[in-house]
């Protein structure tokens, strides 16, 4: 194991990092938690000339502002798992992070780094889609907001420009009558998802029928995927009691819309099958949480 040679600089601020990144061009890479970049360096799959370390660029903690859970991009996975504000305002994310890596990876890995890495099996990415999160990206021209639904382009590729850095992740805070579920199938705990499903269900004011639902999936395509509204028809106004309810039909529809690839852990067909099973389970569990039937 030995990484190729590169230079290293620690940026004291995001502005400095953006400047260095713009100067470095193709040959520069941002180093945040390093839990994805460093393995690629050790395996000699990446050959940057310069690493720009942003770990000292920001020391903010998670906060809630204007109905949004604000996660500074350098928020570590461990904080997502344990922080009171995250557990209260986005329990889906806290639950999903339980599945991410191991203690060491969670101590270093960051929410911004994870989204920028754009792994198609990402638990955090699927939660960003399911919650309707946005990222704030800073570039040479200033800041802009990118919805998670527009962020993920393809395998390990985002819509960010080359010299843009994610500084914040904004997640709409959980509301009353909202329920969540995170379902994941792995071959071994802590590994990359075979399939993961993140679901949010919101009930109407009578608190029994569904007013809105969002379903996002990981491990099923070249990026994490948000199920479009056309796939969710029939959920609004329905009650999920188990048995032959709308959850099965929606799950089957979502599964039918996907064409996952084969890999060493599972075939595409099996993944599609899992999408059906896990989506139905996720919708029902999210519904049960929204009604208060499940903690």
């Amino acid at each position, binding site marked *: 194991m030995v990484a190729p*040679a590169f230079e290293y600089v620690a940026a004291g601020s995001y502005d400095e990092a953006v400047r260095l990144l713009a100067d470095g061009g193709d040959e520069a890479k941002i180093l945040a938690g390093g839990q994805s970049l*460093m393995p690629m360096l050790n395996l000699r799959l990446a050959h940057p000339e310069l690493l720009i370390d942003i770990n000292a660029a920001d020391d903010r903690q998670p906060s809630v502002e204007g109905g949004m859970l604000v996660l500074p991009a350098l928020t570590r996975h461990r904080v997502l798992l344990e922080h009171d504000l995250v557990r209260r305002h986005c329990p889906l994310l806290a639950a999903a992070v339980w599945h991410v890596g191991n203690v*060491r990876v969670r*101590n270093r890995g960051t929410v911004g780094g994870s989204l920028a890495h754009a792994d198609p099996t990402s638990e955090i990415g699927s939660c960003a889609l399911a919650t309707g999160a946005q990222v704030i990206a800073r570039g040479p021209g200033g800041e802009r907001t990118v919805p998670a639904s527009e962020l993920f382009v393809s395998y390990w590729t985002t819509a960010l420009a080359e010299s843009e850095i994610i500084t914040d992740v904004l997640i709409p805070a959980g509301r009353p009558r909202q329920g969540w579920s995170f379902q994941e199938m792995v071959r071994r705990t802590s590994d990359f998802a075979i399939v993961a499903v993140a679901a949010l269900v919101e009930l109407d004011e009578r608190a029994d029928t569904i007013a809105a639902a969002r379903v996002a999936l990981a491990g099923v395509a070249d990026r994490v995927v948000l199920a479009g509204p056309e796939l969710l028809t029939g959920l609004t106004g329905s009650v999920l009691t188990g048995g032959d309810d709308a959850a099965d039909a929606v799950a089957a529809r979502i599964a039918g819309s996907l064409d996952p690839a084969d890999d060493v852990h599972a075939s595409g067909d099996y993944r599609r099958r899992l999408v059906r099973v896990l989506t139905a389970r996720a919708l029902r569990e999210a519904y049960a949480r929204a009604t208060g039937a499940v903690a």
Partner: protein
Amino acid sequence: MTRRRLVLSVNGGDHEVWVLPSDTLLDVLHDELGLADVRYGCGEGVCGTCTVLLDGEPVNGCLILAVQAAGQKITTLRGLMGPGETLHPLQECFLRRGASQCGFCTPGMVLTALDLVRRRGRPSRDEIRYALVGNLCRCTGYTKILDAVEEYAGQAAEAAPAEVRS
């Protein structure tokens, strides 16, 4: 690439080293400082044999650059021992319970388990399992490792109940 001077604080002592920007903390601890208890196992952050505590938190020595560790307190397994190499109580439990076979995973196991017990007081067996998922062992089947950590957590909880409650 030019080497740069760093001072690393390891196991309570400061060490001056000259490193390349691309040197990982694992490279420097193992090859430069001779800490054989920090080991290369995979370079992917998967196996846990290069685990060290950075300001008390377990990290992958293979996935952090040496230059990033300057200014922080680095603890390896050997740093847990008292004067004259007296064993830490958790090490005693590993020995008594037969929790080491080939021993290659042992430093990472002990450090990760210690972090868990420090944070959680008296974790359940399931919590111990979850905390150790990133420390692979190919010899023991984990049972004796879990036994050792459980025994230590029990001792620690009894020795310092007030601290555990806080």
